[in-house]
């Protein structure tokens, strides 16, 4: 399957969907006007990857600073499809700003909802 690399803009994150190295990354701000359109090809890729095409180890890094509510839903959908998917060794890292007293709020929302995924909080 073809890898996807997207450059960061002021309102959309850098994306790495690298099936060769089992690396999935989202980094930056995320509030594109048509958020669901933005995520659609990414969700398609992830559905295919987690449908028996994973590497021995997959690392997912989420390092989003600011995002809108449609992104909140899209991330929920991504964690949902990963949880229902096929994978071997999986590591999910949620990066948060340790200077932000609310930095762990979003992490807690997702880690509570998707306990099986054992999402880890990593300070930056």
């Amino acid at each position, binding site marked *: 399957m073809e890898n996807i690399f997207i450059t960061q803009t002021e*309102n959309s994150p850098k994306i790495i969907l690298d099936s060769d190295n089992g690396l999935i990354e989202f980094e930056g701000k995320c*509030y594109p*006007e*048509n958020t669901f359109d933005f995520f659609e090809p990414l969700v398609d890729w992830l559905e295919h990857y987690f449908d028996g095409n994973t590497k021995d180890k997959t690392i997912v890094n989420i390092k989003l600073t600011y995002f*809108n509510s*449609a992104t*909140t839903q899209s991330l929920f959908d991504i964690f949902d499809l990963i949880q229902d998917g096929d994978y071997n060794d999986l590591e999910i890292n949620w990066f948060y700003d340790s200077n932000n007293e609310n930095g762990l709020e979003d992490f807690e*929302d997702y880690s509570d909802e998707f306990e099986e995924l054992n999402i880890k909080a990593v300070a930056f």
Partner: protein
Amino acid sequence: MCSTDDKLNVCLTIDDSIIYEFHKTINEDSIVQTAKSIETILTKSNAKASKIQNVYEILVEIMQNILNYSYGNIDLPDNRREATGSISLSYSSEKDAYLLQTCNLVEEDQKEEIKDRLYQVRDLDDKQLRKLARQKMRSREDNHEKGAGLGFITIARKCSEPISVEFIAVDNGIEQVLFKFII
């Protein structure tokens, strides 16, 4: 602070002194520029990271809301839109709180929908809001082309006081809607 002309008025005041102001129509570019400018100003004024994040995300959420639901918004190529409205942000050093106020026009039949959505969240505490958000994300019941129906829940979680809304009839079937968010 509210006008119905074709420009977006953004101003930032501290204890009633305007320190930042510009005028633009609401579209994706002006949302990005407004959010960026406000982030820079709040960062320079040594605001707490959590306050900056809350102001930033509420600002984006409400501007995208105006873009999608305002009366008279225009469809542009590539599934984009442009709308009109006004926004102001002020800070009270006494309360250490930001007041974000927005104003735009909506059709009368949207008034009840906005009220319903708002009243659904305005008296809930954070735990209840979190539960409601998870329920809506699981059911995807309010998902539509442009959003997930989570906007007011997201905003309410970031406000320190209940969201305030006021409607003023301005023309046949058209209402002015004014929101106040204390952050």
